[in-house]
């Protein structure tokens, strides 16, 4: 709660400072707000959720909030360069991100479906605006409209699911829903269909196949700065919400659902990685990679009592953010993959960050991505071994996608042109690189 208040106030302040065209002050205020929110979560976070199986240092609830704050911090720094140059919308951008983060924090670990839905809308509405913030670009406008319509549709489905569940159990409280379902209401078609709708709405939000179709277009239309926020924070929040909601509702009956979830996992991974293979646009490639990663994240539902999702989503975010930052570094206005040719040679830090981020996404040890994947598979193998085998085969295809990008970026150019990183980009790349190596000590 403290975190939300701090974020909201700093968002408002950022908005006013932004109106006076002072981008740096807006950045500083937002960064302070995010740091403050993370600290508040850290010191207040003595609450342990029933799913607090993972982190030994920080209770789960505050771990998510801190992760979300840090990821957002990296995202706004990584995307800041553009807004320093064109400072008309800097304040809008920063404060919308912070407002949206308030919703993310509300939504990530709900105990009440109503609260959860409000959080979801607070998270989504600023992002509809953010996607369309590039006023001059037709792609951006198209993406915003598309995202708005499909997103509202998904919200409606989700709401319908919530309503049906309420009809079946008479409560919005997850604990009560669970105890009512446990006494046999589970057999009622209303609860069944309600849960199915809930699952569909969630799958839409994190972009799992077959509810992924909005992803590539929206990602392509968004600016790098927004993409960084959207592809990480929204997924992390979504998957945490799924784990929490379904961890409660499906507690006694998840074997009904596990086949359906396995299907979502396998479809998302194969579809995402195979389609990513032939992309020529970086943003679309990231979109398909995020679809595949959404599939992997759903592995968290395999062992509902003990889901180890934290490391995986953190690794995913810490690998995606440097990549998008590098795309910003390559060329601000284009996302064509040809800009990536030989980019590692323009700056040594870019080279190092790129190699580590791509290997981390491909899941090669000793980088963070491997430990994330390992901890997911660790809890999944005893429950859904065949899905795990298929997921590993899909991972090989995924490794190809990332290696193809890597080989493109490492190609030695005829003439070497050096290019400097801006200070914020340097910080982002350094932090993500260091953290993807030192994840070794977390497991």
């Amino acid at each position: 709660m403290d975190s939300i208040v701090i974020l909201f106030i700093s968002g408002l302040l950022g908005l006013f400072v932004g109106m006076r065209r002072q981008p740096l002050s807006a950045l500083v205020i937002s960064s302070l707000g995010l740091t403050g929110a993370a600290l508040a979560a850290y010191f207040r976070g003595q609450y342990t959720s029933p799913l607090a199986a993972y982190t030994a240092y920080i209770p789960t609830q505050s771990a998510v909030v801190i992760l979300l704050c840090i990821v957002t911090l990296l995202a706004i720094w990584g995307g800041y360069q553009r807004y320093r140059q064109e400072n008309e919308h800097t304040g809008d951008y920063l404060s919308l991100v912070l407002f949206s983060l308030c919703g993310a924090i509300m939504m990530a670990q709900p105990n009440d479906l109503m609260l959860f839905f409000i959080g979801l809308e607070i998270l989504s509405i600023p992002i509809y605006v953010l996607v369309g913030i590039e006023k001059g670009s037709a792609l951006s406008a198209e993406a915003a409209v598309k995202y708005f319509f499909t997103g509202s549709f998904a919200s409606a489905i989700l709401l319908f699911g919530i309503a049906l569940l309420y009809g079946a159990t008479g409560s919005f409280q997850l604990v009560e829903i669970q105890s009512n379902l446990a006494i046999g209401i589970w057999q009622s078609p209303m609860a069944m269909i309600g849960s199915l709708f809930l699952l569909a709405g969630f799958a839409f939000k994190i972009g799992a196949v077959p509810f992924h179709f909005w992803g590539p277009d929206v990602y392509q239309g968004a600016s790098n700065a927004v993409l960084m926020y959207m592809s990480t924070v929204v997924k992390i929040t979504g998957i945490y919400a799924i784990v929490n909601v379904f961890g409660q509702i499906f507690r006694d009956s998840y074997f009904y659902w596990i086949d359906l979830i396995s299907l979502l996992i396998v479809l998302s991974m194969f579809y995402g990685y195979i389609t990513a293979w032939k992309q020529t646009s970086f943003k679309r490639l990231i979109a398909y990679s995020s679809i595949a990663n959404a599939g992997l994240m759903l592995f968290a539902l395999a062992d509902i009592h003990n889901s180890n999702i934290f490391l995986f989503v953190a690794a995913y975010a810490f690998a995606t953010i440097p990549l998008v930052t590098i795309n910003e570094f390559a060329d601000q206005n284009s996302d064509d993959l040809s800009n990536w040719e030989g980019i590692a040679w323009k700056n040594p830090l870019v080279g190092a960050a790129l190699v580590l981020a791509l290997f981390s996404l491909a899941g090669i040890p000793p980088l963070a991505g491997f430990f994330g994947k390992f901890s997911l598979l660790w809890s999944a193998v005893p429950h859904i071994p065949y899905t795990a085998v298929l997921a590993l085969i899909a991972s090989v295809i995924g490794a190809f996608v990332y290696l193809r990008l890597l080989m493109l970026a490492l190609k030695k150019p005829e003439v070497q042109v050096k290019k400097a990183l801006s200070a914020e980009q340097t910080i982002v790349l350094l932090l993500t690189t260091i953290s993807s190596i030192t994840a070794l000590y977390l497991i």
Partner: protein
Amino acid sequence: MALILLPLIFSLIAWWIPSNFTRIFGLISTISTLTLSAVTVCYFKSNEPILIDLGLRFVRFSIDSLGFTMMLLTNAVFFLVFLSNFKRELVHDIRFTALALLMQFGLLGIFTTNTILGFYLFWELTLLPIFLILYWFGNFEKPRAILQFFLYTLLGSLAMLLAVIGLMHATNQQTYEGLLSADLNALGNTSTLLMGGFLLAFAVKIPLFPFHTWQAETYTKAPVAGTMLLSAIMLKMALFGLLKWVLPIFNGIATDFWRWPVIVLGLIGIIYGAIIAIRQNNLKTLFAYASLSHLGLIAAALMLQNGETNQIAVVQIVNHSIVSIGLFLAAGIIEHRIGTAELTGLGGIAKVAPRFAFWFGVLTFVSLSVPFTAGFIGEFFLIKDLFAAHNLTGILASATLILGAVYMLKAYQAPMFGPTKVTSFEDLHWSEITVFAILSIAAIYLGLSPQCLTDFVAHSLSQPTL
């Protein structure tokens, strides 16, 4: 601790070394790791493994005598690779030096780690540098070929990852000793399946017969130093994994199930590799298939799970490293100085480069397993043990001696003698002579007194129930 971490530290420092000093730096760092491990081995008692803890929960190290042998071998191989390339462009490149040292760290990790997850981590860690080395310095026309290498190894290692997870779940153990004490026979067919996962990863790396298709092209197109690293030490990871981890741990139902399939694949590899090698026109491709043939023999022999055989297999592993460094160096020298390694374009080098002819000849004889070289001890005893298993396996395995003579003599005779096609050939540089001399002395020393090695590793090989 420094035993393992030294290469990692050097590989990080390497990025800041000015490029004039890169080759000296590479040499110095490999010499210092080699010296350190050689000094430590003098104080090493084989019944007291050296324990190293870096504060990681899932990765710990314990160096026993087998680990030490492989460690010395690794450090020696890296030293020789840097020394033999001293006059080449390659070692002037910071990237190569740093990546090679990183790979050395990964290999040392594999040979010394004490936990199954550590084994997997380091196994994959070596993939990263070799991929970049092949990509930057290789001679691949299309990225497809190098991706093929990566696909094979990654598919294999992911199967191993599943097997590792399954094994840790099934036994609740993660250390080597813990896994040895766990009763995997109680798992029945699951243990067969788990072992299959490991074997798939190893079969791709060794490589065994149907999984070898990445090998020839990768060896031919890779830079010589990369080929040396791949064949001399990276493939040994798989044999080491088989010898130290998989066979003792899965001893029982699983090994009974997989013994004959692997032996048969090994035998097919021996004969198939040799026959293909005879027909090859490119020296490097020829040696690649020869490697397939030699390693098939070791893999088949390891599956017999016999203590004596295992000791000899270690001798043969070391011998194969010696031979493959020597032969690929020779092929590299020819390719570098003449511009081609195609046998049809070569002939009469012996007349213009007598020193090269001599040392290449010595290495050819070592590879032919003539008596008084390590190859003789290795192949002779391994074939003897395969005879003991079944007459037919013995007979088929012996084919390696005959067919080996055919392709090795062809590989030596065609470029060195015959009609003179090469008129000018710069003779060996001192660094190359040193490498050849070290290799020959090592091979002959091991051939004369193999017991110094077999006795040393006997202790760590006798622990498993045999």
